């Protein structure tokens, strides 16, 4: 929310890309709620604009991962054979490398920029969706209602589109929400390592890296963006947990009712 409204909520919207050398490293006060940074910019305003970038990265990366991972998981889960095995083995290989490490390699190859960060994150996150969808599809195939609908003469397309997909929607949504948090963390780590979008983009990870040389005096400079990351990621994680609880009980009750 605050990310969308950043230009309105920000107290010093111009500060994002302008320099105010006279107001360098001011402590938090009425004029600058969270103090100023090394360029004299308002930390609070830069945070809000940073939120837009962060959310943008998360949404596009998770969205792209969904588009790649869900169909692969569905196909691999629905059909049994060497092709399914191959698909899952490929995603296993991606999962076999820690995401940050792989993202570092990709981002380094492509050079630090916003689209490249998103590409690196999508390329490393899609296997999680493939895994979840695959596992859920396989479980669902053993459910009596899927087998019986197949016995009723329903085609594989009908079964997948009308029965399987709606029933695995909730784990996908939950995964997506948690994936947002995870992706944002990784993006921040890339930014911190200097692989994120180049300055003067107010990316949170880079901001923390910049702030280190001014510690321990300008403590607010490092604290604020870290807290922002923390709150955002926690927000998505809690949203995921909450969604799990909201989306699940109805199903659980219907299955235990008998």
């Amino acid at each position, binding site marked *: 929310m605050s990310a969308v409204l950043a230009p309105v909520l920000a107290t010093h919207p111009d500060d994002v890309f302008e320099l105010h050398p006279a107001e360098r490293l001011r402590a938090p006060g009425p004029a600058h709620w969270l103090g100023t940074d090394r360029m004299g910019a308002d930390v609070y305003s830069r945070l809000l604009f940073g939120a837009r970038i962060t959310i943008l990265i998360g949404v596009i990366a998770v969205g792209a991962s969904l588009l790649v991972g869900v169909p692969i998981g569905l196909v691999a889960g629905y059909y049994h054979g060497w092709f399914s095995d191959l698909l899952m083995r490929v995603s296993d290989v991606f999962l076999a490398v820690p995401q940050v490490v792989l993202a570092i390699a990709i981002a380094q190859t492509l050079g630090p920029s916003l689209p490249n960060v998103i590409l690196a994150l999508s390329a490393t996150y899609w296997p999680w969706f493939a895994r979840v969808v695959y596992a859920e599809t396989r479980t669902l195939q053993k*459910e*009596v*209602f899927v*087998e*019986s*609908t*197949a*016995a*009723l*003469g*329903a*085609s594989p397309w*009908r079964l997948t589109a009308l*029965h399987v997909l*709606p*029933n695995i929607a909730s784990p996908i949504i939950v995964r997506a929400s948690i994936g947002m948090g995870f992706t944002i963390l990784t993006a921040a780590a890339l930014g911190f390592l200097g692989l994120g979008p180049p300055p003067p983009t107010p990316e949170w990870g880079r901001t923390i890296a910049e702030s280190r040389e001014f510690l321990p005096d300008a403590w607010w400079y490092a604290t604020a963006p870290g807290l922002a990351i923390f709150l955002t990621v926690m927000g998505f994680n809690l949203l995921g947990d909450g969604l799990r609880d909201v989306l699940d009980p*109805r*199903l659980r*009750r*219907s*299955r235990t*009712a*008998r």
Partner: protein
Amino acid sequence: MSVTAAPLLEIVDLVRHFPVRNAFGRRTGWIRAVDGVSLAVWPGETLGLVGESGCGKSTLGKTVMGIYTPTAGDIRFAGREIGHLPARERRAVAGDLQYVYQDPGASLDPRWKVVHSLHEPLKIHARLSRAEREREVGAILSAVGLPDAHLDLYPHELSGGQQRRVALARILTLRPRMVILDEPTSGLDVSVQASVLKLFRNLQEAFALTYVFISHDLAVVRAMCARIAVMYLGTIVELGETAAIFEQPRHPYTRSLLAAVPRIGGRRVTLDFALEGEPPNPRDVPSGCRFRTRCPLAQDVCAVEEPRLREVDGRRVACHFA
């Protein structure tokens, strides 16, 4: 049952094996779940398929239904071989041949309203207008004894008994000729079981259905079926009129099985129960007669020669000494 009429379902030497694989994915053996079964079901009758867990009766049902493909042998339904059809043609047969699960309520998609679940089979198999479909669904719904008000509910809003009725209605909208009932009363209390059995009977009459009734409960089978087939380790050991078999079982396994069923209000049957041991693993089927390892009558010949089903005393029995 008329002897002159053609059988609705005819199974000839049906085999369904499942491969057993070791950790390396190499095949190390076969589970011989169904191992050469032949039987026929005539229109309008109820054939009971009885046996203990692992005897292959459910595998047999699912293979006939097309959920598993046969390893070998023929399945002829209404005069047509259906065991080896391409997927698309096989799906079309589902309109005439249907399957009811042990817990029919579980065959309803939890996210679909009852009305959608009931319309679905007609959408798949019939080209009907919406109004025609609604008429058809309404008729079936009243036949299974459910009010129209239930159409807008989700499965979890129904009781277990109501779910069962909806699931039956869903199958009946296709007006199938034959329904395979797989352990339809297992896990039910006697009073509920009684209502379910009554419902099956009424529906059989109303829709001219032919049933294959798979069950481990001999009392239920005795009440429901005119003919029964007794299975042991993937083969039929005795097949014939229910009354005759219950009166005087000829196969030693059938005898033990019947002796194990408690009969209320008499001498305790377990006092005289003599069968020892447990059925062998279907991976390691004994040579010759499969029952010989537990059979009180076993002789040397039983280990060498597998007895074929033969006509004895008005039924078919697979035993050298029947």
